[in-house]
């Protein structure tokens, strides 16, 4: 190890707790970010030029893929905790692959919208759709970066590494969060109407 890399002066158990806390905090930040976007979405809906767009069908495939990824990650965490590193490794890889397939499916949905001549600057509903799905896509990419750190920790030679278990479990937590955010976004983009917003704001 060269001198530029400074190992943390904390035990690996402390490190696991610290990274776990850090992830909860990041989830808090991301929740705030998406909530504010949704509030903006609801407020913008009130304008006269609002016209909803139809949800392209690949989004349902995306949802199924993300749900699968979440389940796989959850099982990977359980397998790691139960001391089955080989199974955990396979499930972890599959969970990551599901997230990558999700991104592909999202791009497919974008293509479907563009084919239907729904463009970014065309109408506010479309603007929000592209921005929110892009942001959520970046959020998935961020998860895959963390995942790419966890995968080598699970290489067969390192299977005894104590950090492997908590890394997988944190990946699982992140994947669940990705799923929750996506379901809320999908529901809002597809089925939130100006009438519902006005009802929530007490002006129905």
């Amino acid at each position, binding site marked *: 190890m060269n001198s530029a*890399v400074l190992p943390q002066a904390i035990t690996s158990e402390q490190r696991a*707790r610290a990274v776990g806390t850090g992830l909860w*905090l990041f989830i808090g930040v991301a929740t705030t970010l998406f909530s504010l976007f949704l509030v903006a979405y609801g407020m913008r809906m009130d304008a006269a030029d609002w016209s909803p767009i139809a949800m392209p069908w690949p989004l349902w495939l995306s949802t199924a893929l993300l749900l699968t990824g979440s389940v796989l990650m959850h099982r990977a965490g359980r397998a790691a905790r139960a001391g089955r590193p080989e199974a955990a490794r396979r499930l972890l890889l599959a969970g990551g692959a599901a997230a990558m397939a999700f991104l592909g499916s999202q791009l497919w949905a974008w293509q479907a919208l563009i084919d239907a001549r729904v463009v970014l600057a065309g109408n506010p509903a479309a603007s929000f759709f592209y*921005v929110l799905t892009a942001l959520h896509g970046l959020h998935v990419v961020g998860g895959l970066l963390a995942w790419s750190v966890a995968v080598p920790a699970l290489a067969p030679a390192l299977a005894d590494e104590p950090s492997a278990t908590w890394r997988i479990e944190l990946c699982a937590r992140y994947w669940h969060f990705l799923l929750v955010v996506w379901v809320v976004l999908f529901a809002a983009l597809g089925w939130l109407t100006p009438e519902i917003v006005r009802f929530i704001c007490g002006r129905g």
Partner: protein
Amino acid sequence: MAYADTEEILHDPHTFITKYVWSQDHKVIAVQYASIAILVGLLGLALSNLMRLQIGFPGVFEFINAERYYQFVTMHGMIMVIYLLTALFLGGFGNYMIPLMVGARDMVFPYMNMLSVWVYLLSVIVLLASFFVPGGPTGSGWTLYPPAAILPGTPGHDWGIILMLVSLVIFIVATTMGGLNYVTTVLQARCEGMTLLRMPLTVWGIFVATILALLAFPALFVSGVMMLLDKTLGTSFFMPALVSMGQVTGYKGGSPLLFQHLFWFFGHPEVYIVALPAFGIVSDLISVHARKAIFGYRTMVWAIVIIGALSFVVWAHHMFVSGMNPWFGFFFATSTLIIAVPTAIKVYNWVLTLWRGDIHLSVPMLFTLAFILTFLSGGLTGLFLGNVSVDIPLSGTYFVVAHFHMVMGVAPLLVVFGAIYHWFPKVTGRMLDDRLGHFHFWVTFIGTYLIYFPMHYLGVLGMPRRYYNYENYQFIPASAHSLNVFITVVALFVGAVQLVYVFNLVWSTFRGRKADPNPWRACSLEWATPDTPPKHGNWGAKLPVVSRWAYAFNVPGAKQDFIMQNAALDAGGVEEQPKSYGASS
């Protein structure tokens, strides 16, 4: 060498590059953050002096045309609020003080911490680059309100506003990386015995301010991203259908009010992101330099937490002039005034700490006392402006300029100065020069009052803010013009004297008097490091163990007038426990 309390070996950085440039040591990162912030802050100061030149002597300086004036206003505001104060309090003081004060070897994510400061530098470079692009920096005012900010007619509507928004987004990434570190370190890396309610109030202030930053900056991020898209890709999030300079724009249906809500949902907590660390630091300085435990430690902690929570439900008081449902105005006026309650508790507690204290008028203490006065006068005008009916006539005048400069410009800066005089010996191992310090204090304290107090009068007189030129308005009397000349002259002098302070910083770093490890005889952990300045890893072979709070001053029967937090338990001075806990233990 392996430390008894770590499983891993701590490698010391050996080369100059790893020690001072790509450093992961929180203390080096703190100094990097603070140095960048102070340098960019000096630019902000210079910009304010250029503005004052125009207001005091309109037309004399031909290079200050209307366009440049608005660019100076905008860049001054943004630099001071975001790139100086936020970065200095969280990135500078947060980085330096948190690990030392809670007894940790470093932040929990040192690598991310290092990234944070370099990303911050990148945001500053992007911001400054806007001075050199065609059209110059944006001149839309620091609030960047659309539609004006991105339409022709506003200076820097082309490249300036884009660079400003990109810089802000980068800054938010840096702050988030730092913020996750500070909060996690406080929650997970405190040494043995350091309960949350034994932490010095400095840590409490920075801790809660960081949580506010983590929850408030996303609002700026959201509005920044949407405005960038409106500007570059022609979406209509904020841009209504309008005709600009005779041209029909492609925008339609967007809501400028939506931007204001998002901006101020960030903008108001931002005030407390700057104020809460200042509150915390002042509490510690006052206690140390008055040799007395802080009065009402627990109420101080609760006041910080409650102020932080309330700061998220008052944002629309910045939008009274934008118009809103009267019931909303009533709600936001009420919530605004309620914040005065925990804030007043803090001021009373500071004053009660001084009561019968052994007050040492050292330079840090002078700045602390000046803060209390300045914050009080700035806060009281806040009570005026919190009322809708008073705010609407005053909002566009110099009264508001006086209010926010007093309360969130001068007051936190006085704390920054006091804190640097206080902790400089720990950071460098040398004392700042005392005579220069006194000179700097009296000029800054009296000077800022001479600058901002008359602005209240100008505001009540009706002098509008944001104007480039005040000539030929019948309602502005000649006396107001002479007052403006006076303010400008004082501002130039006070600005120049800050260079004396910078000289003091640089000179004392290398030539200052050598400092004792604990020159102010304080109790908190940062003064208990085996080395001054602390070495990499902070604590030598063994982490400290804490037995009491940080305010064990003048404990009856003790050998000295203070007991360190990590002194053995039988030295006494343990904080009082609340009755309900005391009965069972």
